[in-house]
């Protein structure tokens, strides 16, 4: 069955006498040989009308299950009738193989599904899933707050050890990248402002621009998006892998609440990390603005920069920026955990859920930020 070079191609002869056909085969009937005769053989068999098959396979030099299957196909015609069959000549091994293959042919395989029908059902399923998903998300948020308040009433039930470990992972380890990114953004805004405003001879207003934009919008949103991309995928992958290996089921059976063990610590870690990271981002962005103002050809000295910043940018801009971070934190943690828990057995679903998780989290962060902007605007803050 291994070498094609010295094997003889499969040959066959079908002869009919009465209601019995004799299937005489010779040559090599293996997986590697049968491809070319597949069509022709099944067409010939379909054209015949018979009640029983006799196999003469004594001259078959090599036979494997695929070859035996080609024989056995004679046992069942397209109309699905079963016929009697018998190996009239052949070795015991060959008999066994034909027997096994014929048994298999008797067990009717399921019909392949229709393509258009499939895509239609998929569309219906997708829309149904979207609605169920929305309802589930809301239910998940509700359940989270119930568990969180229950735990806050008894702080000893909170798993501080994992909160601390997760805070290190989500917060501390992300600090360099958050600060670097905010530094670049701050510098870009500063340059942009300096360029635009110098045409009016008002380049000192770039301080206002940097201050307000970084504190109020950029630092919080950049941090949140970064953490959404960084930690959300991690949450989903971690919890999803646990789900796949039935660790979640084991927890439930052992009386551990998955919300208490997995979701709440992550949410708390995000709640601790995000404001701190945002604060660091703000500092870094402002610092970048100051550097550009000083060294970027505007000759605004650091002292002048901070004096102006103090004068025109109110503290409330800082608080507005900070006020948003807890909301972002909850959004990020809950979406990541929820998608992780929604993973089913397959790796595909793990991949899909991780993608969904990151996309949803970034989308939600920006959407919520827009709502906040609208809200503050209406309130005149």
């Amino acid at each position, binding site marked *: *069955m*291994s*070498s094609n*070079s010295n094997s003889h191609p499969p040959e066959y002869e079908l002869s009919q006498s009465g209601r019995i056909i004799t299937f005489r085969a010779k040559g090599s009937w*293996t*997986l*590697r040989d*049968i*491809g070319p005769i*597949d*069509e022709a053989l099944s067409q010939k068999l379909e054209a015949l009308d018979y009640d029983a098959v006799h196999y003469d396979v004594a001259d078959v030099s090599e*036979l*494997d*299950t*695929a070859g*035996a*299957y080609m024989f*056995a*196909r004679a046992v069942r015609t397209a109309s699905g009738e079963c016929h009697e069959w018998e190996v009239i000549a052949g070795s*015991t*091994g*060959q008999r*066994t*193989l034909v027997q*096994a*293959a014929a*048994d*298999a*042919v008797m*067990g*009717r*395989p*399921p019909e*392949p*599904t229709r393509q258009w029908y499939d895509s239609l059902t998929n569309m219906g399923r997708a829309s149904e899933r979207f609605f169920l998903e929305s309802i589930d998300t809301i239910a998940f948020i509700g359940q989270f707050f119930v568990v969180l308040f229950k735990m806050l009433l008894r702080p000893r039930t909170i798993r501080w050890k994992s909160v601390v470990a997760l805070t290190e992972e989500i917060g501390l380890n992300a600090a360099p990248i958050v600060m670097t990114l905010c530094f670049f953004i701050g510098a870009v805004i500063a340059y942009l402002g300096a360029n635009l405003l110098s045409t009016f001879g008002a380049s000192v207003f770039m301080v206002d621009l940097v201050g307000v934009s970084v504190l109020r919008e950029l630092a919080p949103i950049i941090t949140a998006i970064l953490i959404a991309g960084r930690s959300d995928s991690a949450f989903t992958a971690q919890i999803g892998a646990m789900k796949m290996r039935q660790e979640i089921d084991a927890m439930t059976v052992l009386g551990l609440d998955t919300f208490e063990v997995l979701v709440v610590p992550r949410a708390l870690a995000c709640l601790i990390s995000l404001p701190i990271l945002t604060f660091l981002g703000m500092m870094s962005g402002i610092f970048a603005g100051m550097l550009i103002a000083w060294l970027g050809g505007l000759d605004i000295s650091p002292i002048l920069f901070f004096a102006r910043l103090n004068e025109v940018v109110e503290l409330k801009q800082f608080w507005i920026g900070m006020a948003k971070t807890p909301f972002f934190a909850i959004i990020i943690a809950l979406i990541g955990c929820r998608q992780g828990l929604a993973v*089913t*057995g*397959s*790796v*595909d679903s793990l991949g899909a859920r991780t993608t969904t998780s990151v996309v949803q989290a970034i989308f939600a962060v920006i959407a919520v930020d827009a709502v906040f902007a609208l809200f503050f605007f209406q309130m005149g803050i």
Partner: protein
Amino acid sequence: MALKIDKTASPMEARGILTQFGSNVIHEDLNFHLPRGEIVGLVGGSGTGKSVLMNTLLGLKEPEGGMIRYFGYDREELSAEQRFELNTQIGVLFQGGALFSSLTVRENIMVPLREHTDLPVKLMRELADMKIHMVGLPPQSATLYPSDLSGGMKKRAGLARSLALDPEILFLDEPTAGLDPVGANAFDELILGLREAMDLTVLLITHDLDTLYTTCDKVAVLVDKHIAIVDSLPKVIAYEHPWVQEYFGGPRSRAALSAGKT
């Protein structure tokens, strides 16, 4: 250069195998070969390195020392292409089934067929369905995903995939664990039938004493980091080693033996 398999050559031979994880030596000076056309049962306590031995023989783990030959070819000396070809001669059922979770059972079985043959897709599908039947899975399982299968069904599906290319050598890692007794017996018989028909050489890692009694031609014992004995079951039972005596002297063993004799 295409690989010519001489079927009369010894299918698999391992000499002086040394495997270790860090300083933890698993096998030392291990010699082992599979006689052609026979079913060799490999027994040994849990954690003695049966699965590691299988991985080493398969080339998934490089041994720290020793030599492995398939059909007379040293695996090391083969080109990548020849190794690929050699792999079509080896079917493997891993301990956990190792099915691709993103594919249905039928698609799983079609993977080796797609990779190594150019049959029409319809025929591949039919061949896959035949293998599904041969391992005793219901026809409906063809379109199920591995996550929808029970542990025993996963094993059967994995076996079906390992048989897809009609290999010369079959490695089975605890195939009957997780099957119900009826299914396990049917499985044993299937292995015997396939061996007879396809001239299979089988390495069967098992804890199932019934399988040892009914199916295996020879039994290999992995103790003290090497294969202590490879012989017919009565001789192995008579082998003077505390672990072997305990293994075959236990009540389960005696029950299986008396059942096997009747």
